[in-house]
């Protein structure tokens, strides 16, 4: 059973729908703002913030006011990808997240830990990762399957892979798959304490890169089966052709220097469908802008593809690193690259690593048939998705 992408939904620092995200990618306009102090008064870093408050999201979505920001972002993006969904069908909702309801539970924990003020139970009930997904089930068409994945920054990519497996096995007809994460003090301070936040806007793949910018948002694909395409006469956007999930098995917070995990993820994705390296037209990089990730990813690409490596770029300078959502947001961008037959330029790049891959720097039209989307996480969780033009 083949798996197709019927539709996409997104909310990111670039905008609250697919077309506004696309416009800004093609205009090379980033969505970052130098204003993390609204999350944590003691810090100021560039962040990719979604320009909608929880109250605005709630009223737009007609949702429960207790929902976490991660759930609200998720629901907003999911609503954008349901146009070609025909019910009844066996529908799944599989979502990746790393912080779950943390942004909301921080107001509980702040009071609970410092014993000042009343810690409100309403602020903690949707804390878990599972709640980020299940708490919005009531807003969606009837679901046969709900699951949540947390493999750090590859969470959404693995949610999409699991969605494809459920459809391929014939157990589901359609799956809403992707991920969502909101900015919060927890991750902002966590990454700050790891000293991998760039003081400036991030410079993925650049020799002088010095870290990442955090972001928030959500990105989902509506995956449908071949049978569903035929039954409802849907013209899909592209095919989800292959995928792979591996572990680098090297270190808790660093990829191996030679990029063994990234290499295996990309190689197994190609091998699974017998595609040769020369057939890949574009790689949407994980490209966080950290010293370690970009070195490992670049090394893996050179090892697998050689000097004639495909066009590549990181879109994280536009959105920030949206952690558990990034694999979903970048899957949407990969689908757009096929739809538009265009590649989105990497921002802030001036000097290549040596050795290193040089990303695309201008928005140019290209023949785009096969696109790889890379997602790598702490704990060595490396995943890769392959999208194909129909």
């Amino acid at each position, binding site marked *: 059973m083949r798996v197709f992408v019927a539709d996409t939904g997104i909310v990111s620092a670039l905008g609250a729908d697919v077309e506004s995200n696309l416009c800004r990618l093609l205009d090379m306009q980033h969505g970052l703002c130098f204003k993390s102090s609204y999350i944590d008064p003691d810090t100021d870093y560039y962040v990719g913030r979604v320009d909608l408050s929880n109250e605005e999201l709630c009223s737009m979505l007609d949702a429960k006011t207790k929902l976490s920001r991660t759930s609200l972002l998720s629901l907003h993006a999911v609503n954008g990808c349901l146009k070609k969904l025909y019910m009844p069908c066996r529908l799944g909702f599989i979502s990746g997240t790393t912080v779950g309801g943390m942004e909301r539970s921080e107001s509980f924990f702040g009071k609970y830990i410092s014993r000042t003020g009343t810690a409100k139970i309403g602020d903690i009930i949707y804390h878990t990762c599972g709640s980020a997904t299940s708490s919005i089930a009531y807003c969606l068409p009837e*679901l046969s399957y709900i699951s949540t994945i947390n493999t750090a920054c590859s969470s959404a990519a693995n949610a999409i892979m699991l969605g494809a497996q459920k459809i391929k096995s014939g157990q589901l007809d359609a799956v809403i798959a992707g991920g969502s994460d909101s900015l919060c003090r927890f991750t902002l301070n966590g990454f700050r304490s790891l000293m991998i936040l760039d003081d400036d806007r991030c410079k993925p793949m650049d020799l002088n890169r010095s870290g990442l910018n955090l972001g928030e948002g959500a990105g989902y694909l509506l995956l449908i089966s071949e049978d569903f395409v035929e039954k409802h006469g849907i013209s899909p956007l592209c095919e989800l052709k292959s995928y792979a999930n591996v572990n680098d098995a090297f270190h808790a917070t660093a990829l191996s220097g030679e990029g063994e995990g990234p290499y295996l993820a990309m190689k197994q994705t190609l091998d699974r469908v017998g595609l040769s390296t020369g057939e890949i037209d574009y790689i949407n990089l994980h490209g966080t802008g950290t010293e370690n990730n970009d070195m490992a990813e670049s090394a893996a690409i050179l090892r697998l593809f050689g000097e004639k490596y495909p066009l590549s770029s990181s879109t994280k300078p536009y959105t920030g690193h949206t952690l558990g959502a990034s694999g979903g947001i970048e899957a949407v961008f990969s689908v757009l690259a096929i739809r538009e037959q265009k590649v989105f330029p990497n921002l802030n790049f001036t000097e290549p690593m040596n050795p290193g891959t040089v990303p695309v720097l201008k928005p140019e039209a290209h023949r785009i048939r096969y696109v790889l989307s890379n997602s790598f996480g702490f704990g060595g969780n490396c995943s890769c998705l392959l999208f194909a033009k129909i």
Partner: protein
Amino acid sequence: MMKDRIYIRSCSCISAQDTFASPAWAESIRSPENGLYRCMEPDYRDIIDPAFLRRMNRVQKFGLCTALNSLRDVDARLDAIIFATGWGCIDSTYRFLERLFDQKELPVNPAVFIQSTHNTIAAQTAIYLKNKSFNSTISDNRLPFELAMDNAILCLQDSDSRNILLGACDELTPQLLDILNRISKFGKPEPLYGEGGACFILSKEEENGIAEIRYFASIPGRDMPETVNDLSVRYSIDYIFTLHSNGFFPDDIPQIQYTNYFGDFPTCAACGFWLALDCLNSKNPPIPCARNILLVSENKHGMAFITVVGKIF
């Protein structure tokens, strides 16, 4: 729903009972203390490299320790490592939050932050075993273990994978317990909370298997009573294992509530599954004469999982 026959080759469980160390654990069943089922933990230094152990939190120890124990007598290359957790690394998470909100300065040590994500349990296991294969972590409030088993079975059927490590674990902390009790004041009577972890080697190979998964599927909750009835006849079910007792099931088949041994927590079904395997294999089973056991669980969104596990003859 299952294309290939799937077997369990080994298992291991850390729980409130002496399930990790003693095959005769059922001879002295422990009751909850102060309304809680706390784990009987082994001396981890006997099992995990001390240099590695120093950097691990408690729930990661549940995971890695049961993983290593379940691999002790199994000579198999693992094609996937899949873990389930509901609460994740809640202690590390809380400790980082404490630094954030209690100390008047920003935290400088990233150690507890690094240990706070759910995927560190499966990831540490991969690093420890130097295993580069498929690696994933499923989270859910009610069915994380069942969803992880679903993912494991999909992986066995979607690829040439042959052996998969399936694990599940959750830990209780004083703060978590306090918060759970505050939440449940607004709801039903407070459950007896527990904690624990279990690991299983799932395999397409029957050789040296300890049990077979005869049936596994997720179904709509509304179809559950009828499906359980049908399967009870088809597989000559001796016992039905549930989280909570349920009046819909056949009267003539005894129901076992595994929370009475382990307490209630998101992945307690993993301990329930371990208990089922123990009943099928042990010389001192807590529940006698079992050949086929049906396990059933359901979430509030109308999604149910049914597993039938039986002896290999």
